[in-house]
């Protein structure tokens, strides 16, 4: 049994330490994914919190044979975000907040520059097709492998690779067009 499988198995049996380990491992990447989808820090925080609460409630029903744990977790995040955007009437749109808060006590000029870069990043990502945006967010934002992205989205790995390649090519064109 792999280490991750072991941790997940223990978490399913109600082991708090194991769930905490999964939380530490996946929290930031889920947050980034949600953030890229909603474009707002407060909303991203609320939704990320809901994703983990839902995961904790539902982990007893998780079966390893269906998909890797990370794909299952991202599916919860994906569904939660879609529900949320649907309620807001914002499916397919990403609204950028005026002021993105970056974490860290770095030089204000550097932080401001980073902030602009992230705004540009989200602005460009939202111009991609929905499928490309989903793949780029999961692959780059959340660091999932192609196989994991394929499982999370229910797509073929070859399709994911094509979406990834075309997505990056489109982002490059957008970046060059911005300058």
């Amino acid at each position, binding site marked *: 049994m792999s280490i991750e499988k072991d941790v997940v198995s223990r978490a399913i049996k*109600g082991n*708090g330490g194991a*769930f*905490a380990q999964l*939380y530490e491992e996946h*929290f*930031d990447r889920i*947050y*980034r994914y949600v*953030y*890229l989808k909603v474009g707002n*820090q407060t909303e*991203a*925080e609320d939704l*990320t*919190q809901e994703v*983990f*609460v839902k995961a*904790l*409630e539902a982990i*007893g029903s998780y079966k390893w044979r269906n998909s890797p744990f990370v794909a299952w977790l991202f599916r919860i995040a994906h569904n939660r975000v879609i529900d949320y955007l649907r309620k807001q009437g914002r499916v397919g749109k990403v609204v950028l907040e005026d002021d993105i*808060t*970056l*974490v*860290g006590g770095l030089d204000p000029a550097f932080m401001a520059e*980073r902030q602009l*870069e*992230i705004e540009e*990043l989200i602005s460009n990502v939202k111009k991609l097709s929905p499928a490309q945006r989903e793949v*780029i967010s999961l*692959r*780059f*934002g959340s*660091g999932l*492998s*192609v196989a994991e992205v394929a499982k999370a989205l229910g797509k073929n790995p*070859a399709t994911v*690779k*094509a979406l*990834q*390649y075309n997505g*990056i*090519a489109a*982002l*490059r064109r957008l*970046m060059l067009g911005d300058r």
Partner: protein
Amino acid sequence: MTRKIEDIFDNCLESIFKGEGIDDCLKAYPEQAPELEPLLKTSLVFMQRFSAIQPAPEFKARVHSQLQTMLYAKQKKAEKRAWIPIWQSRWALAMTAILGFLLIGVGTLAASAYALPDESLYPVKLAGEQVRVTLAFSDIDEAKLHVQFAERRAGEMVEMARQGKVDEILVLTEQVANHLDKIYVMEQPPEVEEKGPKMLAPTPIPAPSKGAEAYSKGRGAEELETVLSQSRANSLAALRNALDKAPEELKPVLQQAIEDVEEDYNKTISIIKSGLSQ
């Protein structure tokens, strides 16, 4: 050819994710290098930008703490399930409850219907409820009763708040949780249920908790408000969770309970806020 460049690009990305440089990849695929280089450079820029998006540490800690509380509650629930020989104790309890019901008498029971927690007939009211739960025909009927009694407790909480009775409010929050806990048992039957009669665990008449004892009237309304807010959140979460998984027949009851329980908690909190004096 198109397929191949996509595979190569992905291989290179994987290497970059692992910390290798772009040049290594370009050397490995000299034919595709002119096409790959700009895309890999763009990827690198995006990786750096994406990595700058981080959750605030205080937010992360807050969620961690919330999950720990939930885990603790889950573990307690699991321990309870593991240790109570449910099907054995149920029959004993059912018999006791029936005898109790006969002894108490229907008249007294009717008179107790509107009793409040600080009144002498209140234990009779709870015993009557217990009898109804024990005699319920099906799991769904039992669940409906637990939802109904949770709503009652929330309603009584409002009256206790009006009378400034803090200890009773705290006991009632536990009773609400206790009833909602029983719905949870219904929606996810533990393995032991497969072996015995399909019934729920008995609902003991809750006694005042240590927490309630500790919470003397001298303590602030603010602290009580926090306890109530937490209890409201837990109760609504339990009801919504049940609603997600409940059979159709139970859904309207749960939907109504969500509204009623929330309203009663809000009223209680509002009274507490206005000084525990109304």
